């Protein structure tokens, strides 16, 4: 039988907010702010590397548009959220005018997945930064 653990109260937002916000904006930035320099460097390398390879494979950036069916709509919105979670990498890409149309081919497809996955990995980094800032993890 497992013991039920009391739910820990959420610390004030000013404790974890800056770290989480910076973690979103700059991959590894949250860990850097929390003085975990080694982990910050590894996260920055992995997430930025993933994103840059996605761009070099000319991956497609998703747009939040309604598709012809529910699954397409879900993919468009989900992909868009994944792209946006890459933070400044996504913002720079859009601001610099990157607009790769959705094209057939395995390489383009891998590229789109790399771009989305970079954002999803950044969500993991944000959660980790939150846990460290909130004192739930070293």
């Amino acid at each position, binding site marked *: 039988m497992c013991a039920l653990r009391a739910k820990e109260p959420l610390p004030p937002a000013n404790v974890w907010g800056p770290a989480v916000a910076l973690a979103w904006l700059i991959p590894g930035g949250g860990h850097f702010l929390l003085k975990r320099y080694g*982990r910050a460097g590894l996260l920055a*390398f992995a997430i930025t590397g993933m994103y840059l*390879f996605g*761009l*070099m*494979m000319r991956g497609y950036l998703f747009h939040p548009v309604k598709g012809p069916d529910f699954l397409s709509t879900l993919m468009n919105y989900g992909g868009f959220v994944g792209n946006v979670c890459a933070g400044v990498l996504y913002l720079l890409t859009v601001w610099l005018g990157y607009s790769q149309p959705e094209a057939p081919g395995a390489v383009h497809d891998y590229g789109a997945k790399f771009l989305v996955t970079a954002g999803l990995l950044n969500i993991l*980094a944000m959660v980790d930064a939150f846990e460290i800032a909130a004192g739930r993890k070293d």
Partner: protein
Amino acid sequence: MPKVSLSHFEAALLFAFFTSIVFGVVSKTNDRDRLRYGLYCFAWFLAALFGLGWLMFLGHR
């Protein structure tokens, strides 16, 4: 931005490499466990890659 054209294997290997780094960094509580978990994830990615590759190869014979 230069354009790269990778094979399925190269792209999947690269994906496994970057993803394993992040999994390793965020999941454990000390550096030794992080390194071990990152390598563990990478090994499973490779196992899945070869397993699914063989499955598709045999499925198309």
